[in-house]
């Protein structure tokens, strides 16, 4: 499902972070957001899946739509959070077994059937490229996994909620190159099945996986376009400077 952000501003306790952001994330593509740290990338992702409102003093104006659905229309944020998964920068393993981490959403959404749950767990771990490594230790505590495995577990857990959009906030920033490569391959696999929004501070990574690139600075969209256009022919001076490592 395509995702639209329209004239969206947001901030904490009166301090404005996002300034009338207007964007379109293309359906079933990898949309990469780049920008200097502190420019509001995380705030944007958290606004999109409505976890920002858990934080103190959050306020916003403008609109975010998932297809035709207004993300902020529903009183209950959990409905939209299920449709728009978010994987955080720090890999988090819930203090449960590997399998129960994946089934955390499905069990809540009402799946009780044991063989069905086992299938869901396997399927999601497969899609997250983790199955081969964990299939013999599904009942071990998830904290025994490495950082890279935990991050893929987080992706499997998010996929298990059957989201239409997957947001990832610098998912590789604490991982080694091998794990990073695995996750990039995985994202390329997943694109085509669901809309992906990836925040990264790594321009090489952006270049490797992006279909679309959005350059955010100081809470504003400076420029966006296809990867080739953004990397080869950026129009704005700030974009040029950022992409050449000057910013």
């Amino acid at each position, binding site marked *: 499902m395509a995702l639209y952000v329209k004239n969206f501003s947001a901030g904490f306790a009166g301090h404005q972070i996002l300034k009338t952001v207007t964007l379109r994330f293309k359906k079933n593509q990898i949309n990469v957001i780049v920008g200097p740290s502190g420019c509001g990338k995380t705030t944007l992702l958290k606004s999109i899946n409505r976890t920002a409102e*858990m934080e103190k003093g959050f306020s916003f104006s403008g609109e975010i739509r998932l297809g035709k659905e207004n993300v902020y229309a529903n009183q209950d944020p959990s*409905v939209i959070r*299920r449709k728009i998964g*978010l994987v955080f920068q720090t890999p*988090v393993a*819930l*203090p449960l077994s590997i399998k129960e981490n994946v089934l*955390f959403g499905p069990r*809540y959404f009402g799946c009780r059937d044991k063989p069905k749950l086992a299938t869901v767990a396997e399927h999601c771990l497969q899609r997250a490229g983790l199955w081969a490594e964990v299939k013999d230790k599904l009942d071990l505590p998830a904290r025994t996994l490495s950082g890279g495995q935990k991050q893929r577990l*987080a992706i499997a857990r998010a996929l298990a909620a059957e989201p239409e959009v997957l947001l990832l906030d610098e998912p590789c920033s604490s991982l080694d190159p091998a794990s990073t490569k695995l996750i990039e391959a995985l994202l390329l696999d997943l694109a085509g099945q669901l809309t992906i929004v990836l925040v990264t501070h790594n321009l090489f990574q952006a270049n490797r996986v992006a279909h679309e690139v959005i350059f955010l600075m100081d809470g504003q969209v400076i420029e966006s376009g296809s990867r080739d256009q953004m990397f080869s022919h950026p129009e704005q001076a700030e974009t040029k400077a950022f992409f050449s490592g000057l910013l």
Partner: protein
Amino acid sequence: MNWRHGQDRLWLAAFWGAGLLILLILGSILSCLLIKGGPALSLDFLTTGPKGTPLGISGGILPCLKGTISLMAIALTAAAFPGIVTAVYLVEFGEHSRLKNIINLTVQCMAGIPSIVTGLFGYALFVVYSGFGISLLAGGLSLGIMVFPVIVVTARDALLGVNPLYRLTGLSLGVSRRYLLVRVILPQALPGILSGLLLAAGYAAGATAPIMVTAAAISAGSSGNLFTPVMALPYHLYILFSQHISLENAYGTALVLVLLLLLLNTTALWLRRIKEKGA
């Protein structure tokens, strides 16, 4: 450079000194109790009731031990559930609400009420108004009021100690707060909450003032009847000592009380350790 170094050593010495002082104080209390109360301690002392005239000049403390444990049990039964629920509300649900501040303030004030005042309140509410009379139930409930803020504060800290990323991660999957609470947050906070309950139990076991006016008797059987007065370790100790009945048995009783508290507190500490080692 040398001055710095000297200063560091001074601080270090101060810390060590403070630590040693605490150990010394605890050590002296324990050894004093052991020396003076040790001789009174025996299996008989723990398994028979007080005897002689005045009562307690000989014999043991069984009814007091039973009474204290019953008082403790009632206090916890009454206060644990409301205390934990209050803490859960404060941490998990009351985030942006006014009520949270009011509750926090109330709990803080309750914690500051002198225990004899809690006792008087318990007397008015349970002994007189509710018609329980001077009784195990009235004393247990008064102690329950006394330990309620302890339970709230320890449970709140246990919940606050749970990795906040679990909440963010869990909720970002679209599950409810209640589901997250039951499956992740409470199990994580459980050792801390239990440890708080044990601390509260110890606090209740040692409190004398509230039960003096609501529950305690100089002599009572250990029938377990909720509506009759009970004997209790701290009150028995107080009577033995203040009425010059038997200093040796007073020390013996004190020793048993302190050992009970040590047991509760070390278990609490051990539980907290588990939590630190866990996921």
